[in-house]
């Protein structure tokens, strides 16, 4: 696309800037189409067309323009969209690059940017001072939720969050480097060249699209005899060609964490008109660096004076960036208000580009001689010892009011832009994040790195090194290499101030903004101190100074100085608030990275999952596992399916996938001794070929896990755990084995996933599996309840357990997992032909409850002893040691009246209790009632023809036969306390 110079904007300066005129892009701003040059930011492109007004402020809805040219921008926050799904609010116009077709919209205004109803707030501003919300909305209390909060929420906030799902993808990567250098200005590039030459691996990271840092605007620097910016690009090209160097641009080091760990976000596609499908929008780099070089530069401060926030008022360095890098003049009649020499160079550059400079107003009496001389040579009017005391202009600055310091007579000077500088604040954010400690540089009124907490070094402007030669030497040393490099600045800079300028002092009722993004004025900070806030942390929270998304990059130092003056304390005694990550806002997409959709969390599936799904299984989540929940036939709801499954298992048989149960192979000559120590039961008496139900307690005596343990050989046990408990039980066992009982010759291996486990339960279970089993007599006599054996199933070496969690004759066929589907298919075909069913976890829960078998974690809650759970029989009385032996003797664990697990039967058999329902003795007692316990399991039992429940009840076993009550919101349910076995109380079926 080509455009005539006129299309590119009336404020483009011919032959200025570094963009290629042939490369243009069209974009819209609030519906109007503009043409930009490739390489423009949204800010530079709008300024090229003379657009300064881009938004409304947060609280007062004051018209706001573009203040900076970089990531510190507090004002120009826009809504940027590529298409309907790709829209992002609060994007800094000074960071977002223009691409063809991008749609930009202003925020926080209605009905339009030029006529915003919310600006009414500005007139009411006396009422909106700091702390207004805290004080005003306290009364009446009831109004908070109904009236005040909804109103404040509607009015607050800048952008509007997108509602559509984010169609982009985000990636992340771990990386390691010997040296990571944050910032690729002169200092960072020099350090990188120095380090790279030594052969170590180097990451050079910069947030801008191109390297160069301050050289973007500072056209007066020469390095190695070359124009500074051109030297930087050549240096980057050299670095990129080196195999040990990774140069990342458009990448922000947003966090500096412990032990050399850094978070980086690389913006990959936000500047592209048509990004490739495989490109992530952003890439998170998690870099572990042995050494970090911080070359993060410094940020220019604005001047704090009355009405310093009008569109057209901006930082001097920003105006210089727009001119020297983007080829855009910020106005035709530009005023300068400064406390620092650097702004003079902006004026010189603008003047040479043909822009008229209304005057340089310098609040200092003695600026640098060299800049004064140059100003004189260029015919620029300099007013030293003067200040800008006010400005005018509704939607853009139109004049500045200038007065000699201390004098009362003032004059207005017409301007269409006013560029300001109060000096430079070293960017110590990352240093501070690394837990380094700062010191206050009294002479230059700035905080600088002092004590390092990590292997890290600051170089250049962020270290307060102002002289270019010193800076280069410092950077070379930081890279630990040798390099011959010289640099030269056209001018040495002096000056700088922090705090309110002339005319915005404590005696003045003016709006002199300190924090643009949160509309905090100098007056607000003084008010905070007057109202009793003496800590900088309190002042910050009371005024919200520095609490916006720019984190006070421009405002912190001014706010601190004003507070210190009010408090009458030196600045270091008042202190800085802590800088925290992220340095600039990071999208949720970046932080989430790959962890969305299928990769949000692993979905663990058993080997038979697909076959179960084909049989119509509904699945439930158990930990990360997907377990078959129930198998509805056509037309069945869950209730009908579970009832059918429950009946069929007890009448015929059922096939169940028990693969998710945790399995641990315990091997070694001391295996039995080890299990003796970890479980309450005795294991040395268990013969090979037999299994036993085991209870594991923690040292405090509470039930931790349970499961069936089979002894395969003298020195080999097959331990099972609950599905959810498998990892922590193994961890718990390893802990004791490694640190308390390391003398035992035994090892633990997780074999959960080695085995596919097919449970066949019910009267016909034996008949179903019989034909598949080779090398083992599975008759009741040869292979009774609680037997285990190794055998062959369908030609595959397997482990067969005779055990039951249903109270029926039952087997669990363990086959190597890859064979699970084939064996399952064969067993199920035969089972189906005999009238059996598939059943899921819901039926398993009902059947076990009918038998009073507990589920650890459902019927127990970490405060239940084996005796409480009616499992006292599983606690060995003979052993002299096991984990929990002492805890079980604690007074509270042996007292009367503990909660005990019992059965509950509702008086009306059709009513199914709610799990979690509280139990009381007298439902008519005054509230709060005395709770005796709660329902832990409750089901409809098709086999019993009524509801059943288990509950923990204080003194429960002594209450058997008594009536208790479960009061609910709309009814009270009457229940009778019973024992825990509801079906086949004699227990004969299991031995069938």
């Amino acid at each position: 696309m080509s455009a005539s110079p006129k299309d590119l904007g009336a404020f483009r300066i011919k032959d200025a800037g570094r963009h290629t005129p042939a490369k243009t892009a069209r974009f819209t701003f609030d519906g109007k189409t503009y043409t930009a040059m490739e390489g423009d930011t949204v800010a530079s492109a709008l300024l090229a067309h003379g657009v300064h007004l881009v938004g409304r402020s947060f609280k007062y809805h004051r018209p706001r323009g573009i203040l900076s040219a970089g990531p510190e921008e507090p004002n120009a926050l826009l809504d940027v969209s590529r298409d309907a799904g790709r829209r992002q609010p609060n994007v800094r116009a000074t960071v977002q690059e223009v691409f063809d077709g991008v749609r930009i919209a202003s925020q926080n205004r209605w009905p339009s940017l030029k006529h915003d109803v919310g600006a009414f707030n500005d007139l009411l501003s006396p009422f909106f001072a700091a702390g207004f919300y805290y004080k005003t909305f306290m009364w009446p209390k009831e109004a908070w939720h109904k009236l005040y909060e909804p109103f404040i929420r509607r009015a607050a906030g800048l952008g509007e969050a997108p509602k559509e799902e984010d169609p982009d993808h985000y990636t992340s990567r771990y990386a390691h480097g010997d040296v990571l250098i944050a910032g690729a200005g002169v200092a960072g590039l020099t350090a990188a060249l120095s380090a790279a030459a030594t052969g170590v691996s180097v990451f050079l990271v910069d947030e801008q699209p191109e390297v160069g840092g301050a050289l973007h605007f500072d056209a007066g620097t020469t390095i190695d005899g070359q124009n500074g910016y051109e030297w930087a690009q050549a240096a980057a090209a050299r670095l990129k060609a080196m195999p040990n160097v990774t140069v990342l641009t458009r990448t922000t080091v947003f966090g500096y964490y412990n032990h050399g760990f850094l978070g980086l976000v690389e913006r990959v596609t936000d500047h592209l008109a048509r990004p490739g499908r495989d490109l992530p929008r952003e890439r998170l780099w998690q870099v572990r660096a042995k050494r970090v070089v911080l070359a993060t530069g410094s940020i220019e401060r604005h001047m704090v004076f009355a009405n310093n926030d009008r569109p057209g008022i901006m930082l001097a360095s920003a105006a210089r960036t727009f001119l020297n890098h983007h080829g855009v003049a910020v106005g035709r009649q530009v005023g300068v208000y400064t406390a620092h020499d650097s702004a003079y160079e902006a004026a010189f550059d603008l003047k040479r580009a043909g822009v008229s400079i209304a005057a340089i107003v310098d609040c200092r009496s003695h600026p640098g001689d060299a800049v004064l001389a140059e100003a004189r040579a260029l015919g620029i009017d300099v007013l030293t010892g003067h200040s800008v005391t006010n400005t005018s202009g509704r939607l853009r600055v139109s004049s500045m009011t200038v007065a000699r310091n201390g004098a009362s007579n003032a004059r207005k000077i017409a301007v269409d832009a006013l560029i300001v500088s109060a000096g430079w604040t070293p960017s110590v954010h990352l240093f501070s994040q690394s837990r380094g400690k700062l010191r206050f540089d009294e002479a230059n009124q700035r905080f600088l790195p002092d004590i390092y907490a990590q292997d890290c070094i600051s170089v250049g402007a962020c270290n307060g090194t102002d002289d270019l030669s010193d800076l280069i030497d410092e950077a070379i040393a930081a890279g630990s290499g040798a390099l011959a490099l010289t640099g030269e600045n056209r001018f040495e800079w002096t000056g700088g101030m922090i705090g309110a300028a002339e005319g915005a002092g404590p005696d003045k009722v003016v709006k002199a903004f300190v924090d643009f993004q949160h509309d905090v004025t100098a007056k607000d900070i003084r008010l905070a101190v007057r109202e009793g806030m003496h800590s900088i942390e309190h002042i910050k929270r009371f005024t919200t100074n520095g609490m916006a998304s720019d984190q006070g990059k421009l405002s912190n130092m001014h706010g601190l100085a004003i507070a210190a003056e009010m408090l009458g304390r030196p600045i270091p005694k008042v202190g800085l608030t802590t800088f925290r990550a992220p340095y600039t806002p990071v999208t949720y997409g970046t932080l989430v990275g790959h962890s969305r959709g299928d990769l949000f969390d692993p979905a663990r599936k058993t080997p038979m999952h697909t076959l179960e799904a084909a049989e119509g299984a509904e699945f439930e989540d158990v930990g990360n596992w997907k377990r078959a929940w129930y198998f509805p036939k056509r037309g069945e709801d869950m209730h009908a399916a579970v009832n059918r499954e429950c009946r069929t298992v007890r009448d015929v048989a059922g096939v169940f996938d028990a693969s998710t149960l945790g399995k641990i192979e315990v091997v070694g000559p001391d295996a039995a001794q080890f299990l003796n120590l970890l479980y309450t039961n005795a294991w040395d008496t268990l013969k090979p070929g037999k299994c036993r139900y085991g209870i594991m307690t923690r040292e405090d005596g509470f039930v931790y896990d349970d499961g069936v343990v089979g002894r395969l050989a003298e020195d080999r046990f097959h331990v099972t755990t609950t599905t959810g408990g498998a990892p922590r039980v193994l961890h718990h066992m390893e802990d004791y084995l490694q640190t308390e009982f390391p003398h035992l010759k035994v090892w633990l291996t997780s074999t959960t996933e080695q085995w596919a486990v097919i449970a066949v339960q019910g009267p016909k279970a034996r008949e179903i599996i019989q034909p598949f089993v080779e090398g083992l007599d599975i008759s009741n006599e040869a292979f009774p309840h609680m037997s285990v054996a190794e055998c062959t199933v369908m030609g595959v070496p397997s482990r067969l357990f005779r055990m039951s969690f249903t109270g029926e004759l039952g087997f669990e066929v363990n086959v190597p997992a890859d064979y699970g589907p084939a064996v399952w298919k064969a067993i199920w075909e035969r089972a189906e032909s005999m009238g059996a069913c598939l059943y899921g976890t819901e039926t398993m829960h009902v059947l076990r409850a009918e038998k009073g078998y507990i589920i650890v974690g459902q019927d127990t809650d970490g405060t239940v002893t084996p005796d409480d759970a009616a499992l006292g029989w599983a606690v060995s009385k003979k052993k002299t040691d096991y984990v929990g032996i002492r805890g079980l003797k604690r007074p509270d664990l042996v007292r009367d009246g503990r909660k005990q697990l019992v059965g509950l039967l509702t008086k009306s058999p059709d009513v199914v209790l709610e799990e979690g329902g509280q139990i009381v003795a007298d439902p008519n007692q005054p509230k709060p009632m005395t709770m005796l316990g709660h329902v832990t399991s409750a089901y409809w039992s098709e086999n019993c023809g009524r509801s059943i429940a288990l509950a923990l009840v204080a003194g429960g076993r002594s209450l058997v036969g008594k009536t208790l009550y479960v009061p609910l919101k709309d009814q009270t349910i009457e229940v009778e306390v019973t024992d825990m076995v509801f079906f086949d109380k004699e227990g004969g079926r299991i031995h069938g």
Partner: protein
Amino acid sequence: MADLGTATRALPLAGFHGGSSTVRLEAAPPAERISLRVRAEDVAALSGALGVDLPVKPKTSASANGRTALWLGPDEWLMIDESGTGIGNGLMQAAQNSGALHSAADVSHRNTAILVSGTGADKAINAGCPQDLSLKEFPVGACSRTIFGKVEIVLLRTAEDAFRVEVWRSFSDYAFGLLSEGARDAAVGK
């Protein structure tokens, strides 16, 4: 006894394939594996019986006769035998034959493996693995149990640009999915 046939094997990653222009992803063929635990004094006996010198240096592996022993911990190795294809586990038997004190557990079916190769292989793995995979720190033959995204893996570098990722079977489709994402990004990133 009715002949109801012999079970056929179904691999967890059967049919999975993927990658990008710089990374190839394949499911490894089935292999025999044991988790082997041996005290220092019995390492020689087990090495002899298995035909592989169990490495005793952290993060190293040793291969011989189609068998690879991966050091996982001071008394722990993962043994992989890619030559065994039949039913049963020859490694279990070989360890048994040593006559020395040890623990061997058959984990042939617990684990499955993904082969990751190509110039971007290390980057694909670094999408979820926090270890330094430079050749200096993780040379050919290096192995380690580690983290990959939200799952645990055992990583073995088989060549400068090739890795074997051992993972528990129920985590394997997650691992394959994340590797696919990593492979895609490795082809477009630095």
